[in-house]
């Protein structure tokens, strides 16, 4: 027979202030942790979409990203000799693309700062290579008109991207393009972009070169072999699989998360000590009660479990408060976040959300903190000397 949960529950409320303050410590730590997990998950979700390793991104050797790559048309045409590309009736899935940027005000700070949003010039083929892209509102652009479509993450985070408004693009920023639709890309990085018709944008930006080529390989093709062929003497371009490309682009964001992780880890240790402190006080204050429980037949192990349960209960409530706090913060202060890729100046926009999985992870950490924090005090409780304790004042 174990002690009923209600016994532990009520004990928490015997020392209201101490319990509340300790819960506060746990809540603060968990709140930060949950935010960080949310961020990390948003990044992973976004990048996991971009993890199709049969998609290759071809750049000019020396370039680090699509935004600083320039592929002359004749170089691009050398890609035609590739045999491992997927094909449809309209031809092989090889999409010439161009990438420029436009500085747009961030909505979350009222336009005080601006972000560099990618503008991608594409052709029909792009929609067959980037299969995740789907129009979710309005329609796609008409190649004959000055029209663009906007990714839904970009539309949510930057000003002036509603359907019907006009964006000034072009080298001198004097060509008005009408926004005619919004698209999704399964939450991937493409959702942070603006797409328009390649020849029209090349013209607007006085460009004669593409930025990149995006390729889709046929089923069963070996990406490594194809990359080798592209980088070989016959083509002399460089290529990466989509996951490798985004892994590299998110390197700095991971450093950022690493720092945040480190800080949270230190604060977790502080929380462990804080809980230990509270539990020691609880054990000390209840020595006679523990002795009484031992006298009527509870084992040391049961007493130990009891204190661990109490500590975990306390931590879990603190954890829930922390998650609720983060949720409220995201609601009130906004959940959007955007960052540069490490070598591009192009923005990757996220929406930080607390999924049930993240809350579960945060509560998992909290349980661990509660158990570690209670370990030593609970052992002390289990070793209470019955006779001495009953005699003690």
């Amino acid at each position, binding site marked *: 027979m174990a002690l009923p949960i209600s016994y532990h529950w009520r004990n928490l409320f015997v020392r209201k*202030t*101490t319990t509340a*303050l*300790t819960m*506060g*410590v746990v809540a*603060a*730590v968990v*709140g*930060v942790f949950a935010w960080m997990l949310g961020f990390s998950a948003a990044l992973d979700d976004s990048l996991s979409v971009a993890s199709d390793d049969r998609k290759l991104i071809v750049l*000019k*050797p*020396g*370039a*680090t990203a699509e935004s*600083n*790559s*320039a592929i002359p048309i004749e170089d691009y045409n050398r890609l035609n000799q590739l045999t491992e590309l997927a094909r449809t009736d309209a031809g092989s899935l090889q999409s010439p693309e161009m990438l*420029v*940027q*436009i*500085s747009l005000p*961030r909505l979350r700070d009222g336009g005080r*700062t*601006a*972000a*560099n949003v990618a503008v991608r010039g594409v052709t029909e083929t792009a929609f067959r290579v980037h299969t995740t892209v789907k129009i979710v509102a309005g329609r796609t652009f008409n190649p004959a008109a000055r029209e663009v479509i906007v990714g839904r993450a970009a539309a949510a985070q930057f000003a002036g991207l509603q359907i019907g408004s006009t964006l*000034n*693009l*072009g*080298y*001198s*920023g*004097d060509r008005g393009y009408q926004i005619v639709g919004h698209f999704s890309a399964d939450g991937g990085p493409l959702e942070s972009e603006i797409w328009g018709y390649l020849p029209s944008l090349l013209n607007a*930006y006085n460009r004669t070169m593409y930025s990149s080529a995006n390729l889709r390989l046929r089923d069963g093709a070996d990406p490594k072999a194809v990359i080798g062929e592209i980088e070989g003497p016959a083509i002399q371009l460089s290529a990466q699989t989509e996951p490798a490309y985004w892994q590299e682009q998110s*390197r*700095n964001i991971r450093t*950022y998360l690493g*720092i*945040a992780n480190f*800080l949270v880890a*230190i*604060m977790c*240790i*502080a*929380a462990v*000590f*804080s809980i*230990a*402190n*509270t539990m*020691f*006080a609880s054990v000390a*204050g209840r020595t006679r009660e523990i002795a009484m429980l031992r006298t009527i037949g509870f084992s040391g192990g049961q007493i130990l479990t009891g204190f661990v349960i109490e500590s975990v209960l306390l931590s879990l409530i603190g954890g829930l408060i922390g998650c609720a706090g983060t949720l409220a913060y995201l609601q009130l202060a906004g959940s959007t976040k*955007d*960052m*540069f890729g490490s*070598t591009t*100046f192009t*923005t990757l926009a996220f929406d930080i959300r607390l999924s049930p999985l993240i809350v579960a992870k945060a509560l998992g950490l909290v349980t661990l903190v509660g158990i570690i924090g209670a370990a030593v005090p609970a052992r002390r409780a289990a070793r209470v000397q019955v006779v001495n304790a009953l005699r003690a004042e």
Partner: protein
Amino acid sequence: MTISYVLMQNLRRNRLRTGLTLVAFALPMAIFVAAISFVVALVELSAASQKELRLAVHQKTTITNMLPEALRRKIEALDPDRQRLTAVCGMRWFGGRVPGEQNTITSLAADADTFPIVYSDTNLTDADVAEWMRERRAAVVGQAVAERYGWKVGDLRTLTSTVPPYLSLEFKIVKIVDNPTRQNFFYFRRDYLQESRKAAGSDDPLCNVFWIKCRSAEALRSLQKDIDATFAHTPDETKSEDENAFAANFIQAAGNIPGLMQAMALVVVVIIALVAGNTMMMSFRERTRELGVFKAIGFPRLRVFIIVLGESLMLALIGALLGVLPTVTMLTLFPLPRLNFGPITQLRISPVAVVGSLIIALAVGIAAGLWPAYQAMRLRTTDALRSVA
């Protein structure tokens, strides 16, 4: 024996609790002092850049669209008598990498003639300037960059550009700049870049940004307005920003580390306040009867208040020192590897941050002790004597 002696003895009463509290206080405090140092460094940097009175002029849509180098003449023509500006320096992004390295160095080609004036914070001596003007391949390098790659003045080094046409250029380092504002930069002469580009078949004399050294803050603001108005509705529409606004665009996108640090600092203050408050409440509760004795003996209310508050203050102060001192010592003895967050290249613990941390700790100590101290003061002696610990 004095009252403060009694306070110290009280902290030693429950060593376990004091120890746990001190650790739980010191760890967040260590984060706090580091985070605040970071914020302080940024504030100092931004104040320093503010003093430089530099205005950035770039293409309106985005900095990656470029402006013709002839724009420099047009800007200079706005102030022919040099009433408001001293010099204009055109710059073009090179984005060089040391061959075989992943990291792109913030490397820019700058107009040779005006660079020493506009970037007076590089502290070039007359001899340095002479060398810069004489040597076409001259490069002025921030200390952080130089240390990362082990470069010295006089070295010949090659960087490969990450922008078309991906030139590999050889530079001669003529100066290593130790000013905190210029740690992470690599400057070289734009005429050298232009020549090399021309040789590679791209003859396009363009700039990403024109930096204008202004004579006063008012001059900066009026130039900002005039320049944007002058080029509005031309093919080269501009956007002008002061140096801090310009940098803010990058800091935001580079993850807003200062924002993260500020948030962490805030969370830390909350945590330590709760930790200290918790301990003070526990120790107050256990000592109710003893405080009753103090009152029975004839200690006035204020004394009792001070005894409890003083203990809290002492606890907070020791906790803060335990967190701050090791952090300062560690970071001084073993500096972190070079950071790369915007302009901050190294986490140095500033005295301002240390003092700030101690002040915060004291404030937290007072806040945490206030309620128990008030309770202790209001304690009814007869109840306190009867209470069971």
